[in-house]
């Protein structure tokens, strides 16, 4: 409250409201009452501004929310801009539309907006505030004072300043946030009662509409604050336990130092180091999408080399399967598909991509090639980028989401409700692509005609609201002067600049998410300020390291895999850190569709036959994502229609279980006359040898003594040895330990 007294400005009624409500709150949470005296409304009415005072009232009351009048269609005939991003339109809607019957300056109490809001006339949105509320008084005074409208010269919100919560909070503790809004003219004001609050985890911290945080559980939450197009987030940390003597934990690189720092803050202890078996299985699947073969696994397990883990990581980074697997990931991300590229275009793109990954092109080189691609698709793979998306708007959305981790879609139609981006940012990014011209003969397939990209002399993008031509501008900056020959070069320079706040961070976070099953920012492609990272210092350090190593993707993977944090044991039912947000253990996750199918085939010792691919083609190496496969479809192979990583589904369902456990197809794999069981039987090995080999093939480990006995007993009880062994293989493939990466 001292803060309020310091702000040297005649305050609007908003401040009075703050003083009143904050004092009420202050009493309940033990904060000293404010020193600023409440001034009578009439005395300050001159200062009521439409944008500064009226819109916050509408926003706080929910009038301009998406579910109400902020909907694109409006509600009940009144349409407001979403969360008040367009004050001029809102002024028009309130004052001029409907023949001006919504406002009544001569008798503000009789105005429709107030009567609706207090429900003295029927209102589909129910009562929004009381007649003796500050909200009511602001609207009344605004009308009484002649309804001043927004002016072009009005200051805008420069930033929000929120109480920082460095100190960990305790269970049950309450904490009142204070939010100060700083305007572009340098003035500032307390906006605590007027901003919108939201917690991203009610399990950890709840926040009231007045900004009062109540701690509910251990962990970390972010409370976001939104006001007039600006956003901020406050992390709330609640320790699991107070560990007085935090042990000195082993570390392998800087990742571990920063992870340990967080564990200390949270009172968490990590799991132990994964066994060699678990590590080998994990790192094979994570880096090459492939289960270890039994013989290579045996030699890894038998080796006593202290550096054997690092050496295995290096070996896997150079495998052909590494290229298959990461090409699949990038092709998913870039949505390479025959429906947009044709067979020939898809082949051209895939072979370029595979070459780039084989040669370990740095991320900036890959992205620059895509963004500035031109020429014939059939000779120039990266040109595919411009055939997957074809409009400047779609290209802007993909560029933002895939390369920068920013979801700009919202800003197409209105100011982004959870970020700082406006329609100007959206169309400014689209404008870089306005001069892209494509020659597309419409014939696709192997004999398709020319498909090429060139940069035309002209081409513009217009703002759908104002109809004005928008010049290219990079996010958050004022217009840049683009390269006269090809504006995309300017864009590529900005994206891949070492100082770009999003580019390296986005890739680091995605790759972390691929390896750890969860991003430091989660979801992994949503880097907005209202979705802060779980480990800010770690994300910063990894980003710095990645930039210092010139965006070297293998270096990034190697650094992560060599950390002890990556090599921790998995836990199926952890007591703490259940959602794996703090990486205290490895959180198992289901194998992706392609990897799972390959793993089943490798374990059963059979080959898959895909249409139009040579027998034995592995699912991770399929370049055509529409190659018919019931298995891949039901296990959630992405259709490559969305830039969202969420398109790849991994939740289990009944159809999958039915297929895996009860289909003729799966049964045929187990019983294949050339399959693993048949080969082992023919090799005259004893039950124990065969059981061991099946365990190694499927689970990358030997059975425990107990497992060996139980399984052997069941095999003996089966009508035939063959049946018993097939049933063991069936059980291994259907076990959670097989289906999950851990």
């Amino acid at each position, binding site marked *: 409250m001292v803060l309020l007294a310091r702000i040297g400005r005649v305050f609007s009624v908003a401040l009075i409201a703050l003083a009143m409500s904050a004092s009420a709150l202050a009493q309940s949470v033990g904060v000293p009452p404010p020193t600023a005296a409440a001034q009578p409304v009439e005395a300050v009415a001159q200062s009521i501004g439409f944008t500064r005072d009226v819109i916050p009232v509408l926003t706080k009351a929910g009038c301009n929310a998406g579910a109400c009048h902020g909907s694109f269609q409006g509600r009940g005939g009144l349409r407001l801009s979403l969360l008040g991003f367009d004050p001029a339109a809102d002024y028009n809607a309130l004052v001029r539309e409907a023949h001006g019957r919504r406002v009544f300056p001569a008798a503000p109490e009789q105005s429709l907006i107030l009567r609706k809001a207090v429900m003295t006339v029927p209102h589909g949105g129910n009562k929004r505030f009381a007649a003796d509320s500050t909200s009511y008084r602001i609207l009344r005074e605004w009308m009484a004072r002649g309804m001043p409208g927004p002016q072009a010269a009005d200051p805008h919100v420069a930033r929000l300043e929120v109480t920082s919560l460095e100190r960990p909070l305790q269970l049950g503790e309450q904490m009142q946030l204070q939010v100060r809004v700083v305007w572009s003219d340098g003035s500032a004001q307390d906006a605590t009662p007027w901003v919108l609050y939201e917690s991203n985890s009610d399990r950890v911290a709840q926040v009231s509409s007045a900004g009062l945080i109540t701690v509910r559980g251990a962990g970390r939450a972010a409370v976001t604050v939104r006001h007039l197009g600006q956003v901020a987030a406050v992390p709330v940390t609640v320790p699991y336990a107070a560990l007085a003597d935090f042990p000195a934990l082993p570390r392998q690189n800087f990742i571990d130092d920063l992870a340990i720092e967080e564990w200390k803050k949270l009172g968490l202890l990590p799991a132990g180091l994964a066994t060699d078996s678990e590590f080998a299985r994990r790192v094979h699947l994570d880096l090459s999408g492939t289960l270890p073969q039994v013989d290579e696994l045996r030699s890894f397990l038998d080796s006593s080399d202290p550096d054997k883990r690092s050496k295995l990581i290096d070996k896997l980074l150079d495998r052909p399967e590494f290229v298959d697997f990461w090409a699949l990931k990038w092709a998913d991300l870039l949505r390479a598909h025959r429906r947009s590229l044709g067979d020939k275009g898809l082949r051209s793109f895939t072979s370029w991509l595979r070459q780039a990954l084989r040669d370990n092109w740095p991320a900036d080189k890959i992205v620059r090639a895509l963004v500035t691609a031109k020429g014939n698709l059939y000779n120039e793979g990266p040109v595919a980028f411009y055939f997957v998306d074809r409009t400047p708007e779609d290209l802007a959305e993909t560029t933002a989401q895939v390369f920068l981790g920013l979801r700009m879609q919202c800003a197409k139609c209105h100011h982004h409700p959870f970020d700082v981006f406006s329609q100007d940012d959206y169309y400014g990014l689209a404008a870089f692509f306005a001069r892209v011209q494509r020659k597309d003969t419409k014939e696709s397939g192997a004999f398709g005609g020319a498909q090429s990209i060139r940069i035309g002399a002209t081409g513009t993008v217009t703002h759908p609201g104002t109809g004005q031509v928008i010049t290219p501008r990079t996010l958050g900056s004022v217009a840049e002067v683009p390269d006269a020959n090809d504006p995309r070069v300017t864009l590529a320079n900005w994206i891949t600049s070492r100082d770009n706040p999003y580019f390296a961070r986005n890739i680091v976070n995605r790759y972390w998410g691929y390896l750890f099953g969860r991003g430091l920012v989660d979801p992994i492609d949503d880097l907005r300020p209202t979705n802060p990272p779980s480990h800010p210092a770690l994300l910063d350090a990894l980003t710095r390291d990645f930039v210092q190593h010139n965006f070297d993707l293998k270096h990034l993977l190697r650094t992560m895999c060599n950390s002890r944090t990556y090599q921790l044991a998995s836990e199926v039912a952890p007591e703490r850190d259940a959602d794996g947000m703090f990486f205290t253990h490895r959180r198992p996750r289901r194998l992706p569709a392609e990897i799972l199918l390959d793993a089943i085939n490798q374990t059963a010792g059979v080959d898959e036959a895909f249409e139009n691919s040579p027998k034995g083609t592995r699912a991770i190496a399929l370049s055509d994502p529409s190659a018919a496969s019931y298995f891949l479809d039901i296990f959630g192979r992405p259709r490559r229609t969305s830039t969202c990583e969420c398109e790849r589904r991994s939740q289990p369902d*009944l159809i999958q279980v039915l297929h895996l456990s009860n289909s003729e197809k799966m049964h045929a794999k187990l019983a294949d006359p050339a399959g693993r069981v048949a080969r082992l039987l023919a090799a005259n090995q004893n039950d124990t040898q065969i059981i061991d080999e099946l365990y190694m093939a499927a689970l990358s480990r030997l059975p425990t003594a107990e497992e060996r006995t139980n399984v052997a007993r069941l095999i003996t009880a089966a009508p035939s040895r063959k049946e018993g062994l097939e049933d063991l293989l069936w059980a291994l493939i259907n076990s959670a330990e097989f289906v999950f990466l851990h």
Partner: protein
Amino acid sequence: MLNVTMDQTRLCDGISRRNLLRVGSLSLLGLNLPQLLARRAQAGAAAKDVNCILLWMGGGASNIDTFDMKPDAPSEIRGEFQPIASNLPGLSVCEHLPLTAQQMDKICLIRSVSHTESGDHTAAHHYMLSGYAQRPDPTGQPANSVIYPSYGSVVGRELGWRNGLPPYVVLTGEAAPYTGAGYMGSEYNPLTIKADANDPKFSVEDVSIPQSVGLDRLQRRRSMLAAVDGWQRQADKGAGVLGDRNQFYRQALELITSPAAKRAFQLDEEPAALRDRYGRHRFGQSCLLARRLVEAGVRFVSVETNWWDTHQNNFRDLKGTRLPNLDQFYSALLEDLAQRGLLDNTLVVWMGEFGRTPWINGSAGRDHWAPSNAICLSGAGVKMGTVVGQTDRKCERPLGLTHSTHDFAATIYRLLGIDCTKEYPTPDGRPVLLNYHGKPIAEALA
């Protein structure tokens, strides 16, 4: 080739005989009277527990040639078929639907639903199966847009399993576009059964135990899995990351070994006369199977036909087998459900993605036409024996009363007892409404 006059005579005769048969001997239909009464009581007690059978006319059945005939329109519009009177005074239907004509008292015929997607089958499917518009995309995979769940998936999510049977089953065909759960996730996708229910060796892939395995071996495998799956035992102790995996294994085993499910699929339990009545083709037998599945506990069964895209030879093909087949299974289903008291808590929906053009093209066909359509509702909560809305003289557009696909969706949700004002997050976190402010069609509700 069917002879129209003979056909009518034969079928009219057939109906009266069958009615006699039914009244005289319920047990022939697999039920004795106490069972029937018990079922009815059950249905009454669970008035909200409404089932649905969706008869999907994929390709877009011609409305003007079925339930919205325009005998006074010029011949290039009205086409070849003649109207016949139905058992609803004042309503006539196509001469090739004589059996259905006698069921119109159990149907609420809606002619007021209109949408704009005439160009693309898949986008139109999305309109009619979810209420929402979708970008046209012949592959059914539009880029960067939200795919909404179909009615059956919503039922599955909102109401869940019953009697160890999955809530949503799709019969026949390849599963039409957008019959799945869209943004809700594959967990709510239908169990799709592709096998031909009319095949004497009909068995359901992945659901029936493979012949080379058998029940005994399946049980041995379960024991083996228990011996191997230490992970699952660990996870069962607490809420872990394996999610509902174990639940799905339980459900799968339940389904595979369920006598109820097994029995539901055993169509040969039905008397031959009834099987004949439904029609000895995959669609007729699928309708019968739909009824058995609903009786066993499945909440939403979709029976898909896909032969209505009559751009060429509309009249030849419709009167050849398509309308006669439809007439058979549709009338049989309504009759059978009513007879068993199942119509009280089973909603039957007959519809496709759009209607067809009133004008006839150069190939004696009719093309896609979304602005006018005919939809039939029956059963639970429906005001049966009514016609809602009318189209203009040429059957081009609704006159007066017009409903959007959202209104239609709201109607279906209302009838199924689902609150459609709910909001769900898409996988990328955007909140979307189950239904976009549609208003149930009051005229269709009892």
